[in-house]
């Protein structure tokens, strides 16, 4: 029984006792989409996943799969598969038996089991480990066993709860690529929970960013990268994340300290204090501009991150190659005027600025 794999959360809320874990959530996930739920711990993303899985029931609202209300259905009735953060492999069963378990529970006849199990295992390249027990596998192999168990049934929905967080850094990056390829092959709607923004940005077709129990932005990675909706999102996305600097805006000019920052846009509203956000890659050293003192340089190989002190604030600048500066050196920097983001300091909301068209084309 396979529908399209569309998921909709309609005004869903979740309370535990008197404590709110999820404030009103409205979400629509499209068929065959790789959709990430991203946010720091406790932001509500795992709660949302568990609600979609049916492991918890919402305090209010509905959950719909392909327009079918599944809010009252148990997890076994929703035709989903899930990979847990701890993998939740059955320790007393072999890898083959683990993978076969969901098929057995669905009543698949015994003679078909072996080939289906081998097929799923081969897809994640553990078909040589079928007779081992989970305790005899490495972390990466266990994770793939959990994956195989999830995909063997060809479910309508594929849920992953921070599946890579228990792997070491190098393995994480390798497995990431494999996961993306796997999802393309299987063509199944995938919902992926993570706190690692790099993971979400590289894997997902669309991302929902959670903060404090609500969604603050939904969109494709590029859109989020280009136009973060709030200060919090701006400070969260990107590695390294955006620099956030206190500034003062007045019509067409933005001032940091005593220096005017050229900005190819008009800032609506009265003169006020704002937060200025700019990516490390959009800062460059210059003969004139904002005075800054080099604090520490991080050499990363192909690029380097220069930590600067501008007034009392720490700002990171990216340069290619090694660092041409000494620690403590006084330099000047300029921010790319087309790539500035402004936010309200208290609410964190993005300030929409109107670009001045003729200025944009002449950006250096």
């Amino acid at each position, binding site marked *: 029984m396979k529908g399209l794999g569309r998921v909709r959360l309609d005004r869903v809320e979740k309370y535990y006792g008197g404590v709110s874990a999820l404030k009103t959530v409205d979400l629509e996930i499209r068929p065959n989409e790789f959709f990430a739920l991203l946010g720091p711990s406790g932001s509500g993303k795992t709660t949302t996943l568990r609600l979609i*899985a*049916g*492991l918890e029931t919402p305090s209010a609202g509905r959950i719909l799969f392909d327009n079918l209300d599944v809010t009252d259905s*148990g*997890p*076994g*009735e929703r035709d*989903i*598969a*899930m990979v*847990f953060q*701890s993998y*939740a492999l*059955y*320790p*007393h*069963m072999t890898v083959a038996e683990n993978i076969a*378990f*969901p098929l057995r*529970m*669905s009543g698949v006849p015994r003679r078909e089991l072996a080939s289906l199990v081998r097929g799923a295992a081969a897809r994640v390249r553990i078909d040589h480990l079928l007779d081992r027990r989970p305790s005899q596998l490495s972390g990466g192999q266990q994770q793939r066993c959990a994956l195989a*168990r999830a995909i063997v049934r060809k479910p309508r929905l594929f849920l992953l709860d921070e599946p890579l967080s228990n792997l070491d850094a190098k393995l994480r990056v390798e497995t990431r690529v494999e996961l993306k390829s796997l999802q393309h092959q299987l063509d199944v709607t995938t919902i992926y929970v993570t706190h690692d923004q790099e993971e979400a940005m590289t894997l997902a077709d669309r991302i929902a960013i959670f903060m404090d129990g609500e969604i603050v932005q939904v969109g494709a990675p590029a859109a989020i990268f280009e136009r973060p909706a709030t200060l919090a999102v701006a400070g969260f996305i990107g590695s390294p994340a955006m620099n956030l600097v206190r500034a003062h805006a007045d019509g067409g000019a933005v001032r940091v300290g005593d220096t005017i920052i050229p900005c190819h846009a008009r800032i609506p509203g009265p003169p006020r204090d704002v937060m200025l956000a700019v990516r490390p890659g959009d800062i460059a050293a210059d003969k004139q501009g904002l005075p800054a003192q080099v604090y520490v340089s991080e050499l990363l190989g192909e690029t380097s991150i220069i930590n600067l002190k501008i007034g009392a604030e720490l700002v990171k600048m990216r340069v290619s190659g090694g660092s041409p500066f000494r620690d403590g050196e006084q330099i000047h920097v300029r921010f790319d005027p087309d790539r500035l983001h402004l936010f309200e300091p208290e609410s964190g909301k993005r300030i929409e600025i109107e670009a001045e068209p003729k200025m944009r084309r002449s950006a250096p």
Partner: protein
Amino acid sequence: MTGRGLRRRLAKALITACATAILAVWAFPIFWAFVVALKSESEVLAFPPSLVFTPTLRNFIDTLVGRFSILPEMGTSLVISLVATLLTITIAVPASYAFARLRLPAGKLLGFYVLATQMLPPVGLVIPYFLILNSVGLLDTYQGMIVVYLTFSLPFAIWLMVSFMEDVPREMEEAAAIDRASRLKTLWYVILPQVRGGIAVTVVFVFLNCWDEFLFAVQLSGNRVRPVTVAMYNFVSVEQTLWAKLSAAALIAMVPMMAIGFAAQRHIVKGLTVGAVKGGGRR
């Protein structure tokens, strides 16, 4: 060797000597029982007692297959303990799963109830049981004994199994639910295999408690059904005590328990410490 190293070695040697001495003293009574069992009755009463004598297996043979055989009573104990243990496990394991994992109506209250029943002093139960079994004619029967042995086995088994059930990670059950396993299938295929060790511990303790039990045995049994603990009194009477035979018989009766103790020692320690971590309970 440095001064510090030497001091440490000396300390360790002293501690080992001390502990071994305590151990020897502690184990001595059992050892002595063995020695006595190998003597003849007259040698036992010889004064002063000596470790030099001609050992004889007469006592062991007599109490095992000879005139004073306690084999029938051991058989009785075996039947009662085995059946009681089986019944207990069959009832306690599912119940403990429900307590530990499922949202039970009035769950907490029932939990207190089970804990409280563990605190009952046996004398408070043997009195009504004597009167009740007497009036329904179940004194001195296997059925009567088995039912009575359930009274102390059940609460203890439930309490033990609950802690083992709680050790199973919740995610295991969630994964099984997503894999479309019904509650019953989850219990059978996923949970039970994982608490196998816990069940073993419970079986050992329940069986041990049943075999070693005395008060219920002596009051509620008679000539037809006589557990082995009561059989010890075959060798004790007002006029005389057959020391050597008593020792031999007691040792034979306790051999199954000692064997289980050695074989299942890790299980026993686990059972004891489980109790220590979660509170309450017998033995």
